[in-house]
Each structure stands twice: as C-alpha cells, then as structure tokens.
C-alpha cells in the first residue's frame, strides 16, 4: 500500500491492543499465581481484579523451589533440561551445518531426498517412537539416562535444523568466498573473514529454534525417564501430588516462570531472526 490514512493507522493500533492483551494474559497470570501465598490460592478475597492479582504478593514459592522443599524436584530437572537440550542442539546443528552446506553449495543426487525426508520426519507422531524406544531402552539400560533422552531429541531437532539451515544457506551469496580468494586471501582467511560471518546468523538462529523444540518436549521426557534424567516439563507435571496436603500450585507456577523468562528474553532479543528462521523453512516461493 502506498499510504495509510491516519484513521486506518489508529484503527490498526486499536486492533493491536486486544491482540497483545490476549497474548500476554496467560503469562501475566502464571506470574501472578507464582506470587500468591497458599492461602491466597484458595481464597478470592485475598486477590484483586477478579481473583487475578494477589493483594499481598510473596516470593515464598520461589524460595520453595530454589532452597525449600521442592528444591530436590526442581533443580536437578533444570540441570537435566539444560544439559540434554544443549547437547541435542549442538549435535544437530553441527551435523546439519555440514549437510545444509552440501545441499546449498554442491551438486549431488539425493538432495531432494534428504530435504523431503527431513520434512516428513518432522511430522512423525513422536509418541510412535516412544513405545519401541521404551522397550529398547529398558533392555539396553538407556532408560532414565541422559543419553537416552538426547538420542530421541535428535529426532526432533535434526530434521528441523537440516530444513531451516538449508533455507538460510541458499540465500547466502557464496561467490563472495571466491571473490576473496581471487583478491589473495587464503582458504582459511576466506572462510574466517567471509564464509563464517555470512553463515553464522543462520546457524545461530537454527540453534535457538532447535533448542526451543527440545526445551518444549514433554512426550519423551515423561515416558522415557523416571528420575535421573527427567527434564523440567515432565518434572512440573510431577510436582502435582508431591505433597498430599497442599496443592503445589504456587511452586509449579514459580518453576514455570523461571524456565520461561530466559527463553522469552531470547525471543525478544532475536525476534526478527527467529521469525525469518521459522518461516523461511516453511514457506518458500
């Protein structure tokens, strides 16, 4: 559109407000709930805005998960999540970088096969992998271990990384490398000064998206672990009923906020790149 009238401009801004509220409320809500004391959780007179925000916010729930009774449930799970998701992301992105480089720069038969397989595999109902892996892991001793979760996570992150990175690499002006070599740069200089800076944003964005995908997993974690490798999403579900006498609502919400904040910050900082990564992998034309 050439010009948008001031009326349309303000109209659109007006429409944007409900969209933003709809997006933010569940997050604000889980934060509000994490600040409620046990008594406020069951008594609406202790909260304002229609049982939404606590009149007397408290950090007790955060103390509970970091130093208190829920510490042994939450901290190991957080550690498992970080180790497992970073490992799966690293392995996937390294393998996928070589693969995507070959797909975008070299001419060889089977390129389309690799891309189609990557796409097809990313739509696997993951639960279909759980039953055979559960049986196999039980037999070979990988059940409830960190490698026992990294391997299935590769099934989530690797196809996605191949697909997204190939889309990124196909947009890189690779002839710059040759130009640098013509100008007298060595192969290593050309790689370090030209290729790496060109490829790095795509690799980095792919790593973030792959990490999110692994971080979000619940199916594998809840079904292939019991305690030694359980990640945060599955551990949250098991907070429920951890104590017979009080519902661990506040602790769950506090833990949810803790695992959400770093990821949201990543999204806020790298918003534009993530959008490009998510859509360039899916829609090309």
């Amino acid at each position, binding site marked *: 559109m050439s010009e948008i009238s001031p009326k349309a401009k303000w109209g659109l801004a007006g429409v944007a407000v409900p969209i933003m509220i709809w997006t933010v409320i569940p997050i604000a809500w889980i934060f509000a709930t994490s600040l409620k004391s046990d008594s406020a959780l069951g008594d609406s007179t202790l909260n304002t805005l229609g049982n939404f925000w606590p009149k007397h916010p408290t950090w007790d729930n955060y103390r509970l998960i970091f130093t208190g009774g829920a510490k042994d449930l939450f901290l190991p799970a957080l550690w498992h999540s970080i180790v497992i998701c970073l490992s799966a992301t690293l392995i996937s992105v390294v393998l996928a970088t070589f693969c995507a480089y070959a797909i975008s720069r070299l001419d060889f038969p089977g390129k389309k096969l690799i891309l189609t397989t990557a796409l097809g595999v990313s739509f696997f109902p993951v639960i279909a992998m759980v039953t055979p892996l559960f*049986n196999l892991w039980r037999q070979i001793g990988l059940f409830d271990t960190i490698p026992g979760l990294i391997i299935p996570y590769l099934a989530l992150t690797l196809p996605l990384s*191949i697909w997204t990175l190939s889309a990124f690499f196909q947009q890189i002006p690779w002839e710059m490398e040759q130009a640098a070599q013509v100008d007298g740069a060595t192969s290593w200089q050309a790689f370090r000064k030209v290729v790496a800076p060109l490829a790095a944003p795509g690799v980095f964005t792919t790593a973030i998206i792959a990490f999110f995908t692994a971080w979000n997993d619940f199916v594998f974690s809840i079904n292939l672990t019991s305690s030694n490798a359980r990640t945060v999403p599955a551990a949250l579900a098991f907070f429920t009923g951890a104590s017979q006498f009080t519902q661990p609502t506040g602790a769950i919400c506090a833990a949810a906020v803790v*695992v959400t904040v770093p990821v*949201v910050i990543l999204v806020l900082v790298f918003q534009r790149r993530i959008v490009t990564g998510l859509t360039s992998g899916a829609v090309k034309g």
Partner: protein
Amino acid sequence: MSVTASAAGTTEPVRRRLSDRARGERSLGWRLAGPAFAVMLFVTLYPIAYAIYLSLFNYRLTDPSGRKFVGLKNYAVALSDSLFWQAFVTTFVIVVITLVVELVLGMAFAMVMNRIVLPRRTLRTIVLIPYAIITVVSAFSWLYAARIDTGFFNHWLHWLSLGGFPLDYNWFGGRWSSLTIICLSEIWKTTPFMSLLLLAGLAQIDSSLEEAAQVDGATWWQRFSKVVLPNMKAALMVAVLFRTLDAIRIYDNPYVMTGGANKTTTLSMLVANETINRVEIGMGSALAVILFVIVLIVAAIFVRGFKVDLTRTGRS
C-alpha cells in the same frame, strides 16, 4: 545457483575435467550430508520399523517369556475397541476446532501485523511470545485460570454477565467444557506460528493487485476473498498442513489438564497409557503404528488432494 553458474561459465570446453569435478563434488556432497542423513534415519525410521515388528506380538514387558506372535490381532483388537474410537473422535474434534479458530485468528493477526505502522515491532515481538512458552507451562496456566479455587475465568465471566455466570462452574467436570479449555491453551500457544506463516504469504502479494481492485470499486470482502486469499493459497495450505499434523499428536495439554478424564484421552495418550502404564508393548506398538498411518493418510490427502508442494526449493 551461483556455484554451478560460475563453473559452467569457465570450464565449458573441457568436458572431461568437468565430469571429474562433478564426481568429486558428488562424493563430497554425500560425505558432508551423509552423517546427518544417517543419524536422522537411525533415530526415526528405526524406531518406527521396530514398532511395526513389535506390533505383531502379544508382549508384556513384565512377562518377556510369554511373548508370542499373533500377527495382526493387535490391530483388529484396537480398531474394534470403543476406547480407540473415542480417542479418535476427541483428537479430531481438537484438530478441527483449533485449526478453524487458528486460521481465522492467525489470519487476523497476520493482516494487522502486515499493515500496522505504530507499535509495529512491539506487536511482532509480543505475538511471538507464546511460541517460546513451554506447552506444559501454557497448559498449567490455563488449567489454573479455569479451576474453581485458583482461577479467574469464573470471576471474570461472572462479572461480565452481571452475575449470570455461576462462580462455581466446574470446567473440568465434563467432556466438552474440558475440551474447550484444552483447545484454548492449544490455540493460544500455536496461533503465533500460524500467523507468521500467513504473514509470510501475505507479504508476497503484489500490493498493486489489491490497489487495482480497490480502484475498480471492490469491497473489502471482495478484495480479501478474490485477491488476497487466492494469491496466498500456497502459504495458506502449508500452514494448514503443518498445524493439522502437529495437532494430531496433541498430548501435553490434555495430559496436564485432565489426565484423560471425562473422555478427553487423545490418540497419543492412548499409546502412552498402553505402553507405559500397562506395559503392553505389542498393543502399544500397534496403536503407535495406527497413529503413524493416520498422519500419513492426512499428509497424503493434503499433498495429493490440495497439491501442496512442500519441497519447492526454487525461489522465483
């Protein structure tokens, strides 16, 4: 692509060397791409193949010696079981409701994001936030929001309806009200992804087409249905396919919110129950394979029926 173009330009007369080079390129290509491809196949196709094999046995994990070959009997039992069909209906009700709502909502978001001037960056950033939230966290948020004791839904609805809505309405007391909350959480979490795909499609439409239609006196609806939608059909179909296949495997939300109570067990939950809780590996595998086949059928319908071309790598 740039590489082939420059190679063809310089080495046209020397046929023999080109083919050597091409051969070297082929082997290098597979050496670089091979490991990723092999690992990908190993971690995905191998479990599926193993599941197909296991599905032919009557096999409980706790009783390995009693394992015996039963052919397709597990499939016959699963497909004639009313629990399976109940889960089937639940899953597809969720798929259809979330897909329709997300299409409308996602399209609205995308159109606003495409045109908006004022809080442009802020809006685009905020809309992306649910994508970054763990599905289980979203499930807990909506669960606590709808529960009678901890929630605010009933309070807000009570206030909005001027006291008409009961404060003690139990959303998790029945099948359809439970599914409503499950769908809301799913919609909230995945609409951003949908709207981004649709926004990418919208951005590719030549704006002069729409302006021409406007000059010719077309109404807003005519411009939307006759110009905008047909021109972004490819993006639209990809978004629908992605979301459908993703929604079929829904597991996290109903697991956290209802645990499958009130007939809200989905197909994925059925597979997990059979495998993990009842350790019926044979039956669990059969259900897993059935779910896999359902996904294949839906994908085939889209790709064949609606001509969705997913591997279109050429950029125009």
